[in-house]
């Protein structure tokens, strides 16, 4: 079976107009993502990672460059691409199961089927019993799990995650990292995960792409396939890689 590139970015650039002046956010970024790999995009805060992700999702247009999904040129919202946002990604006026059923709505299924389909993923993320709850009744971590469940339920092959654990406290964050790996193992998808936390990146990623600060470009690519899972924060190899990335990242934050 050919290990084709699920997603390919070819010389993506993004320039923002700020009044009279132009701001270059992304400068000729090219990268590729293999099928079912867990790719982490790492960089200092505000460097443009979210912008890049939005471009892949089709929410923003690149100033130049192309996005290929499954080998085809893509110019906007793609049904194969689903996104997990930070906390606000859950609609507060819908219950958990309505939220999870949302993407399916577009596909024209009956309500009963949608709920049944979504139930699988609600259970998958460990929220069994909370189907009829409203978001305001849930904790931050639980809301994120709803977002993940919904992204999985949408059957998109490619999941984009924009710092999904950014707003959570450290404790919840660690447990969510384990959760996401568990889910990914049970239900393999191509994941592009954005973070500014080195530890998180090393813990989660098959590969890590390290970006510079704005204007953003690729600094280095780290291949972590040899680091065995489940990973250990205090493992020697883990710390070694972490230190190396840290040094390179330091150079970036001038």
């Amino acid at each position, binding site marked *: 079976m050919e290990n084709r590139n699920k997603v390919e970015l070819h010389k993506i650039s993004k320039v923002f107009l700020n009044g009279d002046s132009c701001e270059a956010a992304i400068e000729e970024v090219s990268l590729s993502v293999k099928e079912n790999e867990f790719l982490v995009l790492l960089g200092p805060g505000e460097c443009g990672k979210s912008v890049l992700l*939005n471009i892949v*999702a*089709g*929410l923003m247009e690149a100033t130049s460059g192309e996005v290929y999904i499954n080998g085809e040129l893509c110019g906007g*919202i793609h*049904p194969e*691409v*689903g*996104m997990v*946002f*930070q906390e*606000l*990604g859950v*609609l*507060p*006026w*819908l219950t958990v199961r309505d939220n999870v059923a*949302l*993407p399916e*709505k*577009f596909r024209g299924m009956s309500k009963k089927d949608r709920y049944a389909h979504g139930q699988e993923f609600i259970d998958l993320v460990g929220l069994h*019993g909370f189907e009829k709850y*409203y*978001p*305001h*009744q849930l*904790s931050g971590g*639980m809301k994120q799990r709803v977002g993940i469940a919904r992204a999985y339920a*949408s059957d998109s092959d490619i999941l984009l995650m924009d710092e999904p654990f950014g707003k959570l406290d450290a404790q919840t964050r660690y447990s969510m990292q384990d959760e996401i790996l568990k889910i990914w193992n049970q239900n393999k998808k191509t994941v592009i995960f954005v973070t500014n936390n080195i530890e998180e990146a090393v813990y989660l990623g098959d590969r890590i792409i390290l970006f510079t600060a704005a204007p953003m470009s690729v600094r280095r690519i780290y291949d972590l396939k040899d680091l065995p899972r489940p990973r250990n924060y205090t493992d020697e190899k883990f710390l070694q890689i972490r230190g190396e990335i840290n040094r390179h990242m330091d150079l970036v934050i001038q």
Partner: protein
Amino acid sequence: MEERNKLEAAAGKLRFERRRERQKALLLGIISIFIFLTVWQMLCTLHIVGENVLVSPIKVIQAIWIKAGDTRPDGNTLLQNILSSFRLVLIGFGLALVIGLPLGLLMGWYRPLDKFIRPIFEIIRPLPPIAWIPIVIVILGIGTAAKSFIIFFTTFVPIVINSYTGIRETNQVYINFAKTCGYSNWRIFRTVGIPSAMPLAFAGMVIALGNGWGTLVAAEMLASNSGLGYMIFMGRSYGRIDIIIAGMLVIGLIGLALTAALELIEGYVLKWRIKEK
């Protein structure tokens, strides 16, 4: 589930504290009304204020009691007057809701529509309802249509403004998410924009209803033969201060009831909101 137990314990404590707070507030409210009524009664009993200027609360209650069945001096019982005014406000408010709510939402969502309607709206907005009376008489006559229009006008403006602002404040993240689900702009308007706008839209409705109910006196000034405003005018013509005050009291109480009813509905429709009291 440990998490669930913790949640319920915390909720229980909150509920208890809230009940205490509400009882305190209620008590304070009752005391203040009591003091107000006592001072009022004293002013009258001790003749500090003349009978042709102010009438005691007891006489006002009497007037209400009697008016419930008596058609004098204005020719309608209290209930007939209440229903007449109610009808006017219902029509005016209802129309404002049916026209204003969609208009505000659409204006807030679709820029071209906003730019098109804005100028007219901004000119009309500051006009006081009484200023409309002369024009309304000529165009709409002096019947229910004319009077309801006055009320429509005061209720229309807050509904439009609030639903407009509400939908403009829709969080971009929600919109982005809906986009990634593949929803069209129209679909996003319906599934994200409208629910998002509801809290503010409801606030607008509460204001509108208050405005509308308070404007019924001005509207009935146009031409009437029934209604609470009419009852007050007749009270004035015939020197019945007790009826004037009774009318004001009834208007106030019903206004209160209407607001409370609307807020009850709001509480149900918007049960997904985080209650911060």
